[in-house]
């Protein structure tokens, strides 16, 4: 009799959100542990002794590409213009999608009120429902969180200013005595708070950089699971109307019966979820959407759902029409991105390889967040995965492989593995992907060789570098061998053994071909320093080598990689 729909929807939805946070954290920690374990092991191929001796597979294999793969240069103006165009495209398309969703929500809200249309109120409602556009654009444009929060505050204040000014105009210019600017602004703030506080909080949590790589994916699965729970519960209630069913369960109390029923129903539901997530993963792999698109879509779904719960107070189950806002948003975004295509100038000179001293999770994540994420509008980012960045770089395909027990597919073991991962195409939102290479202890060196040959720029974080970091020494020698020293920015700090750094690279490159190194000193927390590094990378990318990159002078450790099994 009572309209329990709002409560039911809230209950099952927020349970899914709560579990999303917990399960995401558990999975990420587990995944990180597995990556760390894998890095310490040998590949299966070597264990079985099937390396093709002496073959420089990586360097010559057509699947990997030629050694001198530096693209024709784009001018600095071209690169900046391209990025501006892409940013404009994202802003316009996603703002239009958000505005359409807000229009749907506003219409439903006004229908629920049943009052005549008032222009100020209609605008205020629409503007309030538009609020998710701000976090959406912040995520898509890789705006730092502090700046995004300031942007949100500015959005709120601009709305209040418009509502206040408009109401004042109605009162003083048109003589509308009912118009009270102060009261309208107050109502605007109250309504915005009531509608936005909970989804905003969820967006803050799921948008956390540690969680965001898996949280949308986990949320999608758990929402299906959670609402299947609601459906099975209703099915149980209906089944009990039949005496035959009732008589079969007389020996159970209500809670045991509910538990048994749900556990049984969870199996087919779980299978459906798994199929659904696998489908999403395949769609991601074939570039139907980017990881950030998936994230912001999940936010819009959360917002639309929260509005549905509000509408359910008036419309019962009809309140689910609030989800039409999500349909409108996704439809507009899909059409917008398809019809406003990128003027793709190819990959340009933007292929960035990120190298680092392993073992400094926090600072590696910071460098990754500020530079790698921003770089994606200019070019692809590649890196050899490590436990330090595992939680930042896991994507839907990795997630499915990991949970499905097929993590070995994510590790590089052969030429085919490597070739299959060299992804240099843009996603529908115009961004390149961050491609990480999970390597065994005996495959990271050949992988590095291959990546160097497919990179235009290198950013190497050598903070804390010392003689103990033999892996970095190998990387430095490879940079010299591949003639990439002039295309590399070295991030150093007071703890970096710069003498060892110079000795290592010059020893390999030879004094004659020695080039000055691009050293960037960075203190522990320095946003300005990271920004400076980003700008320097942009300059370097827009300044291609005069005559292409020279072939390696000598291979100190021939980059061997086993052939595909």
């Amino acid at each position, binding site marked *: *009799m009572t309209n329990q729909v709002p409560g039911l929807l809230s209950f099952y939805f927020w349970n899914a959100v709560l579990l999303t946070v917990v399960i995401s954290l558990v999975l990420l920690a587990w995944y990180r542990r597995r990556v760390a374990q894998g890095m310490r092991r040998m590949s299966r191929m070597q264990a079985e002794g099937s390396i093709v001796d002496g073959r420089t597979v990586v360097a010559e294999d057509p699947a990997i590409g030629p050694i001198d793969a530096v693209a024709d240069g784009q001018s600095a103006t071209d690169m900046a213009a391209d990025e501006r165009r892409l940013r404009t495209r994202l802003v316009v398309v996603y703002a239009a999608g958000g505005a359409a969703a807000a229009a749907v929500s506003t219409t439903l809200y006004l229908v629920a009120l049943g009052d005549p249309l008032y222009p100020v109120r209609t605008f205020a409602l629409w503007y309030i429902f538009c609020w998710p556009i701000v976090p959406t654009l912040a995520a898509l444009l890789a705006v730092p969180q502090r700046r995004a929060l300031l942007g949100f505050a500015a959005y709120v204040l601009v709305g209040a200013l418009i509502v206040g000014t408009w109401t004042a105009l109605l009162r003083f210019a048109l003589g509308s005595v009912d118009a009270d600017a102060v009261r309208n602004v107050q109502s605007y703030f109250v309504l915005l708070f009531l509608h936005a506080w909970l989804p905003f909080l969820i967006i803050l949590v799921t948008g956390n950089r540690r969680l965001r790589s898996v949280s949308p994916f986990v949320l999608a699965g758990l929402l299906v699971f959670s609402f299947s729970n609601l459906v099975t519960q209703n099915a149980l209630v209906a089944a009990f109307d039949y005496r035959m069913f009732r008589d079969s369960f007389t020996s159970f109390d209500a809670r045991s019966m509910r538990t048994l029923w749900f556990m049984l129903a969870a*199996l087919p539901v779980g299978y459906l979820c798994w199929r659904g997530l696998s489908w999403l993963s395949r769609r991601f792999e074939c570039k139907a959407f980017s990881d950030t698109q998936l994230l912001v879509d999940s936010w819009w779904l959360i917002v639309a759902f929260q509005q549905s719960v509000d509408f359910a107070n008036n419309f019962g189950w009809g309140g689910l029409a609030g989800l039409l806002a999500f349909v409108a948003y996704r439809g507009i975004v899909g059409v917008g991105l398809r019809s406003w295509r990128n003027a793709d100038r190819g990959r340009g000179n933007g292929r960035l390889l990120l190298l680092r001293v392993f073992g400094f999770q926090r600072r590696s994540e910071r460098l990754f967040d500020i530079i790698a994420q921003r770089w994606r509008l200019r070019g692809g980012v590649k890196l050899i995965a490590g436990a330090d960045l595992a939680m930042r770089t896991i994507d839907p395909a990795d997630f499915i492989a990991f949970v499905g027990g097929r993590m070995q597919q994510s590790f590089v073991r052969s030429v085919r593995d490597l070739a299959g991962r060299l992804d240099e195409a843009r996603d529908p939102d115009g961004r390149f992907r961050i491609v990480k290479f999970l390597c065994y202890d005996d495959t990271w060196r050949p992988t590095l060789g291959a990546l160097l040959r497919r990179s235009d720029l290198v950013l190497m974080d050598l903070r804390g570098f010392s003689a103990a970091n033999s892996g970095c020494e190998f990387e430095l020698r490879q940079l010299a061998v591949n003639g990439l020293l002039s295309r590399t920015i070295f991030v150093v700090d007071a703890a970096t053994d710069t003498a060892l750094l110079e000795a290592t690279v010059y020893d390999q490159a030879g004094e004659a071909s020695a080039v000055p190194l691009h050293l960037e000193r960075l203190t522990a927390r320095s946003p300005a320093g990271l920004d400076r590094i980003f700008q320097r990378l942009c300059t370097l990318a827009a300044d291609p080598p005069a005559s292409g990159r020279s072939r390696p002078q000598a291979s100190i450790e021939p980059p061997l990689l086993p052939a595909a099994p």
Partner: protein
Amino acid sequence: MSNRPDVERGLALPRKTPLAQGLWFVAIVWSIAAAFLALEFAWPELLRWSIGAGWLPEEIAMPTQERMPAALVCRQADVDAEQAATVDLEDPLAMRQVRYASWMLGQQFGFAAALANAGFADAQTAPLREDLQRWAAMLHLPTPAAPRSVHVLNQLNDFGDHLEADPQCVAARLTRRYGPRYGYLYKFGAVVGYAVPARAQNIGGSFALQIQLYGRKAGIPQELWLPMTLDSLADLPGADPREKVAGVVARLSEHIATSE
């Protein structure tokens, strides 16, 4: 034997055979399902505990007329248009009779509804219904009619909602004529009456929240209604649950019949 390293198994551990894979799938799915069930059971318990501790008002977990279809809810305007009282409000004896009749009306109504929902035939509950009519007539009220539930499993909730909706304006009329305590006394009697058959079968806990709220608002001392909200009647005097619950109801009746 393969010497494939452990990491190749990803999250999974024993995944060599289809049976092992199936078991792994079941383990993952049931872990997630168990987490959902834990939340599903934990939130209501937390709410109950918070209300019991006095941190939250009982009303927060109660059905409200605002969330019910208007056609099923008592129209207060109709009640307000009626005659205010049919007895002398200053006469203590008359008011004691009204109080007792309100309690009995509710109790008989709840008891009859519970028996009907439990599958008792009309013939078996006929004496109860006659009693009910007598109490209603004594108070110049319509005889309360039990709600029809679409689903058997929703009968308990539907009765609680029905009582709150008060479609025949029984509680609303008592409130209008004699004061809020009388309306709550009727509702208190109804939830206690509905709970009695279950308590007699040693099944506890139904309408605990309503008993607490209505009992308090009707001015019934806590020690009298508290046993009806507990999961077990083990600490009460009596040979069996039936006798124990009969004792609780008798003490309530005696208090209502004798107190001012």
